[in-house]
């Protein structure tokens, strides 16, 4: 049913429809609304015999799900930023053990400096742990991706992260078609585990594997990820049949048919980019947009195919490989190996900075005129940087960087001397 609803609430409703059996919850902004609503729905009996555990840390949250999933239960949790890092060991463990856990990442920047607003640094930090990573463009996408995620995870025995921009999507109140139980049950069968702890048929899970077999175990995981690139489109097709709308998918194109320039991105910024594309198209610029829906595994061939006719690619990403530059752009470049094509890296939206249509348009035109630095930091306040560098040149005990920058920008009060 189509309704005006907050993103988190819609996602919680979608999760409830998938009937998880164990949910673990540890609070962190901005995911809290999801687990709060799920706790309520559990108590209201909307999720069968689902067990909702309030745990003592994110590490505990994922650990609880590791045990539950190994016992044959469908499992779910949500986290962000620092919480995702706190469970890092368990994230690798779940993937290595092949447990089909589904987890929402309400994307949020990682400190220091502490920052509760949206960027992709959290999912990026664990992009190679072996989890499938899907990115939602809007809240309809977020709802649909979670439903797809359970089916995907369980068919491949691989955990899935569904990434949705913290606050920007989680706290956005917009129209979403929340499916009903009949539709979801038709699409998502009950969980049939590949491995399960069962007194009737004892197995040992989690053995130590030495040099003689470790490579083979990892290769197997790698192959499963590559298989995901085939399974996902089938799953998306099936979703369309059941729900009458196209959601998810490895990547998709917007006005790319005759585009010289392609802007590539993931997550909610895609919406703003589409507006920028339309406005530039009205002035005759042949620009289009490629959305990456599945970041891990990275759909190299599919992305490359969408860029067949383009000569210039601009990757807009909400993350930074400190000292190196882009992360997504590195993957895009890898996909475009051997092609005569310019790839620009634009670092935007870090720590929740708003990405405006006007800034994007200006940046695209600058890229077209070969005037972008590489990487290019969108809306960078150069004055503040220069002042801070000058200060540090002059004084040894210059104090914390962040506090002084904030003072320069008059965001916080000056120090009492």
């Amino acid at each position, binding site marked *: 049913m189509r309704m*005006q609803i907050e993103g988190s609430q819609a996602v919680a409703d979608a999760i409830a429809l998938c009937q998880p059996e164990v949910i673990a919850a540890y609070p962190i902004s901005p995911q809290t609304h999801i687990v709060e609503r799920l706790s309520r729905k559990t108590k209201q009996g909307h999720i069968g015999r689902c067990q909702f555990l309030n745990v003592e840390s994110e590490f505990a949250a994922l650990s609880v799900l590791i045990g539950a999933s190994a016992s044959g239960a469908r499992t779910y949790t949500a986290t962000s930023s620092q919480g995702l890092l706190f469970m890092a060991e368990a994230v690798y463990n779940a993937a290595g053990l092949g447990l089909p856990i589904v987890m929402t990442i309400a994307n949020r920047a990682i400190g220091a400096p502490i920052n509760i607003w949206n960027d992709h640094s959290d999912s990026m930090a664990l992009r190679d742990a072996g989890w499938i990573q899907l990115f939602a463009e809007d809240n309809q996408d977020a709802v649909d991706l979670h439903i797809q995620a359970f089916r995907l995870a369980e068919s491949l025995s691989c955990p899935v992260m569904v990434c949705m921009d913290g*606050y*920007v999507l989680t*706290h956005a*109140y917009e129209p979403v078609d929340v499916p009903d139980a009949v539709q979801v049950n038709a699409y998502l069968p009950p969980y049939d585990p590949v491995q399960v702890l069962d007194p009737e048929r004892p197995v040992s899970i989690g053995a130590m594997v030495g040099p003689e077999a470790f490579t083979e175990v990892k290769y197997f995981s790698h192959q499963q990820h590559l298989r995901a690139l085939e399974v996902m489109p089938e799953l998306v097709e099936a979703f369309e049949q059941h729900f009458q709308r196209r959601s998810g998918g490895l990547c998709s194109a917007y006005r790319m048919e005759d585009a010289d320039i392609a802007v590539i991105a993931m997550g909610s910024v895609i*919406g703003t980019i589409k507006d920028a594309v339309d406005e530039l198209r009205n002035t005759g610029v042949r620009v289009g947009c490629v959305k990456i829906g599945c970041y891990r595994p990275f759909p190299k061939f599919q992305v490359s195919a969408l860029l067949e006719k383009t000569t210039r690619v601009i990757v807009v990403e909400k993350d930074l490989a400190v000292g190196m530059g882009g992360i997504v752009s590195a993957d895009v470049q890898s996909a475009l190996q051997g092609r005569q094509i310019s790839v620009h890296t634009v670092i935007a939206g870090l720590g929740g900075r*708003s990405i405006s249509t006007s800034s994007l348009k200006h940046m695209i035109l600058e890229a077209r005129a070969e005037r972008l630095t590489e990487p290019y930091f969108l809306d960078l306040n150069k004055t503040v940087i220069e002042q801070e560098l000058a200060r540090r040149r002059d004084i040894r005990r210059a104090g914390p960087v962040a506090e002084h920058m904030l003072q320069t920008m008059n965001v916080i009060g000056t120090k009492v001397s």
Partner: protein
Amino acid sequence: MWQIRIHGRGGQGVVTAAELLAMAAFMDGKYAQAFPSFGSERMGAPVVAFCRVAEGAIRTRETVTRPDVVIIQDPTLLHQVDLFGGLAPLGFVLINSTQTLDALHIEEFLSTLPLGHVCAFSATDLGLKYLKRPIANGPLLGAFAAITGLIRLASVESAIQQKFPGAVGEANRAAAREAFDVVTTSITEQRGIVHHAHAD
């Protein structure tokens, strides 16, 4: 597309106001997007909430830097926070205050806006009257319907009732209705004074 920006302080229901506005627009068959810009949960800190209303799908996620409407729930923010930044030349302003625009030192600043596009009234007093609490957001939504005509008062009332069932919703709706009337009267008077002046 209409872009609305609501300013207030934590605990005053600024985020709820944006959501109710979006819900009312949804009930009117429009596409609406509302989202907050706020920090960690804290009472009293400045809070901004945004809302966009359009006939078709809204895709952009940027903050509202060029509002068509600015709603100020807490006038103590005036002269402290840039409340009017980017306001459209033909924009609307609603201020929750017992004082006149002149007393608030913003009459001249807002005088460039069309007649009938600015209104200051005490939404808080209406909240106290109907809810016994200084809740301003319901009345401000009624005022919004009156001053912009973008959403129907009936939809504002339905949105309020859905969010706050029972007696609380009833009281809020009544406050919204009275605010609608107060602002309608004010706008008419503003335009009326000019007509009088022209007539002379």
